[in-house]
């Protein structure tokens, strides 16, 4: 057992005018996670501490938060890798509902823009549509996304442009555009080629650094850009009032 200080940014708009820091001292075992600490604080010290959690093993995506300045899942952040004072804040750039709970609605809505479902109007065969392991390999990494929001919340482009689709929605677009069974590639590409879309990604790689599923999101976005170039679906704003289409 070792003692840790949890320094948590708290805010309940029902009674606070602005956010403030609170500190809690907790005894933790070395194999425990940051989420265990939050649960212990809630159970034994302050029942009003509010955070989302569910599966507690990195598959549901509920407990994404900023831990020591970096977005992560609390259930995957091991105590033994933490400094003695652990600083915890809500995901950046999303509106705070209460304490560590942010409004995810705008984040989920962005996904809907990219037609996030398989589109194939050809009459389905009696059995499965065939897909080679190689074809499957192309989308394999992208399908592991759990939509925790860590990526989009860490993206500086999103900080400055809240309308930007963001890494998560672009990854979702990739997931279908590169699925050999999908037939709406062009339509979907057009959906992401706008002033808050694909070309706003400046390859900063913050998303890749924080993704709890270790998805190389930026590389996926780069593949989308290459495809858009190949299809000559590029529209870059160079100067005011002049759009050059390639």
């Amino acid at each position, binding site marked *: 057992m070792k003692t840790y200080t949890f320094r948590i940014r708290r805010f309940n708009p029902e009674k606070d005018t602005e956010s403030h820091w609170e500190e809690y001292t907790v005894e933790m075992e070395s194999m425990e996670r940051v989420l265990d600490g939050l649960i212990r604080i809630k159970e034994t010290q302050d029942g009003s501490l509010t955070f989302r959690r569910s599966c507690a093993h990195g598959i549901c995506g509920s407990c994404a938060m900023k831990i020591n300045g970096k977005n992560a899942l609390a259930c995957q952040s091991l105590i033994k890798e933490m400094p003695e004072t652990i600083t915890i804040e809500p995901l950046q750039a999303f509106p705070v509902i209460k304490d560590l709970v942010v409004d995810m609605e705008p984040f989920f809505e962005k996904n809907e823009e990219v037609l996030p479902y398989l589109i194939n109007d050809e009459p389905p065969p009696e059995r499965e549509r065939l897909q080679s392991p190689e074809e499957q390999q192309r989308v394999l990494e992208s399908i592991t996304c759990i*939509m925790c929001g860590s990526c989009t919340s860490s993206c500086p482009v999103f900080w400055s442009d809240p309308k930007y689709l963001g890494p998560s929605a672009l990854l979702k677009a990739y997931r279908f555009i590169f699925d050999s069974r999908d037939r709406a590639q062009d339509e979907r590409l057009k959906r992401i080629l706008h002033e808050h879309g694909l070309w706003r990604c400046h390859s900063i790689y913050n998303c890749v650094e924080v993704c709890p599923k270790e998805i190389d999101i930026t590389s996926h976005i780069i593949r989308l850009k290459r495809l858009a170039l190949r299809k000559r679906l590029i529209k870059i704003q160079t100067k005011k009032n002049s759009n050059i289409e390639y």
Partner: protein
Amino acid sequence: MNRLHQYDVVIIGSGLAGLRAALEASNHGNVAVISKLYPTRSHSTAAQGGIAAALGNEEPDSPEWHFYDTTKGSDYLGDQDAIEVMCEDAIRTVIELEHMGVPFSRTPEGRIAQRRFGGHTREFGAAPVRRACYSADRTGHAIVFALYEQCQLRGVRFFPEFHVLDIVVEDGRCHGVVAMEIPTGQIHAFSTKATVVASGGYGRVFKTTSNAIATTGDCLSILFNRGVPLEDMEFFQFHPTGLYGLGILITEGARGEGGILINGKGERFMERYAPTIKDLAPRDMVSRAILNEIREGRGIDGRDFVYLDLTGIPKQILQERLPEISTFSKIYLGIDPSESPIPVLPTAHYAMGGIPTDVDARVLSNERGDTIEGLYAAGECACVSVHGANRLGCNSLLDTVVFGRRAGKAIAECLREADYGRITNEVVERAIVEIENIINSRGDTRVGSIRAEMQKEMMEHCSVFRTEEGLKKTIEILTELKKASKNIQLHDRTKRFNTELLEAIELRHLLNLADVIARSALQRTESRGAHYREDFPERDDKNWLKHTFAFKEGDSIEFRYRPVKITRFQPEERKY
């Protein structure tokens, strides 16, 4: 201000059963899905290993063998008419999921890949068969996303982060649902023609569980309090391979790909317990075998765990087919499963029992088979019963999708005739008063301490091994804890996103269900499937080849019984 909504169909729960029901019902009327989590956070996403269907893509297989295995796996308590429906529909179901976009892993020919799983055999038990269709070890996640995406396409309305407070069952029909919008604390009433309960399991009654923190069985408890019976609640599955100390699941697919269990003497002990299919025996048997090895001093270094050894599986196979479990073994235990064995212990995993339904997901009001108008249930919260006393791996995903769809189809009939339900002010008021009572209660106990005591007690006396003495003690303690739960104190008295309040509500439901489980276990004086009574170690078909129906009678429970439907396979001794 309370909000009133009117929908033809309201579905509670956005896991696999709920989403599949929503998709089907959207063909027939307007549909809303209420869920206490965001849909993509449902616990179905944690399902790892696969979905069973006799596709025969990798070797010969048949729905009839699947039917036999499921019946035998259920220790002959499963209703064979329902099992047949499920197994016959499995192939169509999986193909349909593939057409919806589920990214199944593939064979070199591009077909859906299949692997071995516990209790699934060819030729009526001759040898293990490749029947589990999988998407690496993220099968649940892959299917939840595909179904959610299809629901979005169809314009299904979602109410995420709504906590159900009441399911209004009055005068023999279901009128709708009362729920709290979690972010604001506002109360909403949903008047419906049909309500589908697809709220999942309740593994959080136990200390060590693979289940998410949100799986607290609220809706089962609500319905039980409303007079709906609960069926076969004594049957709770412990999955053999939970990560030691954490309970996080390591899929049976790990043994399907060649992993083996090893005791402290380095023996592959399952050879002794199930000589034919060894480590791929059904979960009830493997869990008992592990705990037996530990009891007899053959745990690792004499301690309370055994090893799951995956070092014999080629690294490439581990990477391709079991990446998720490889990753979290590394994260949580610092163990690379390609190099070292993983310490494991059984973990509470799946409720076979639940809300009794017929094969079209209509909820039964009694053991005679009468139904409740406008009320349907599917998935883990329901008991059709296709799993009987013990579920086979990969049959739960199949169950959710098959019976979710059937609920959606059955609703079409209901919608033609039914009117919208009537939710009175009194009903809504009662829900509000209950919440206010919890918020304003000035007791001296904390929710967390009561919950921890319940979970510890259920683990000690009501898990894999049970005795009359232990169960009686559990029931006594639960009675005390129920009293204590009325004397709690909250720190958070605000309306907005009050998770402390939600935990207090969930605690009441958990205690309610724990009590039903313990009392159901006490009255069944035999051992069958996952229910093992050390004082009655034999299966007793003469007296107990029947389903338990538990009814709430004041503070007590009345038990009645429903015969098992046996159509094709007569009960035999269960050997593997």
